[in-house]
């Protein structure tokens, strides 16, 4: 696939156009990346597509190799893998807190101790999610404004 960047005058709206033979997974990945940069994520619920504002997401979880996006009161499915979402959303204050979960730090109200060297993050929705021992160090770094490993 070739790429072309054209500078346009300020009065014209910016546009990213993809010309392709088929809408492959690769193309969808590029679209998802662009949308995430703009603060949106394409998700599905009840066989309908939704554009979810990244700022509304509480956490993203992988169950049986499927990624689920949770907002206050709603649950959506997304085609992207957790590691792709982690890469896409790291600038949006999302942090990996376990092997299967990405947490939006902006939605955490407090952190509590839990059994087995783990911590529990209480969200503004009242839900609680587990921060596993392996990712506690990354959380500390993220809160100090340092980049996680």
């Amino acid at each position: 696939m070739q790429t072309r960047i054209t500078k346009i005058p300020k009065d014209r709206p910016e546009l990213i156009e993809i010309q392709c033979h088929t809408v492959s997974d690769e193309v969808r990945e590029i679209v998802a990346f662009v949308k995430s940069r703009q603060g949106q994520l394409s998700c599905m619920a009840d066989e309908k597509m939704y554009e979810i504002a990244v700022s509304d997401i509480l956490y993203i979880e992988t169950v049986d190799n499927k990624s689920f996006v949770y907002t206050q009161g709603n649950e959506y499915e997304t085609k992207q893998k957790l590691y792709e979402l982690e890469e896409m959303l790291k600038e949006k204050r999302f942090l990996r807190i376990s092997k299967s979960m990405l947490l939006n730090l902006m939605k955490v109200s407090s952190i509590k101790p839990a059994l087995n060297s783990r911590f529990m993050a209480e969200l503004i929705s009242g839900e609680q999610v587990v921060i596993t021992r392996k990712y506690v160090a990354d959380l500390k770094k993220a809160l100090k404004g340092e980049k996680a490993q």
Partner: protein
Amino acid sequence: MTLKEFILSRVQVFFVLVTLILFGSAILGGIYAPEQELHYHHLFSPIIIAAACILPTCVTYYKKEPTPVQYIIRQIIELILIEAVVMFLVQAPPKYSGNEIRFYLILGIMIFIIYVFVEVMTWLQKSRQAKQLTQQLQVFLVKE
């Protein structure tokens, strides 16, 4: 937790235990049996006891995060095994002759108290750490 991380943490605990057993033996021995003479082979005792106490802690190793119930069961098994190992290694002193059950009962209760004390201290330390993280989080949210 990887096996390597677990083994490294056990090695650290082993050396801490050796030091503490040596320290405790020197103080208690100096108070209760100052006339006792030790031989070179007695220097192996702290190493042997520490190694024996480390073995039961292997039940807490996990590859997959255990659930809270699994975690509690493992802790109970660990405590029982530590009790068994210490009771096997420690002999009742002559003054408890004929009354060994009482000695081992007291020893068992002491190990239990120390174990619970360590767990409570660990929990308090974690609570303090969680409080600190919450404060850092609030600063982080304000900045954002």
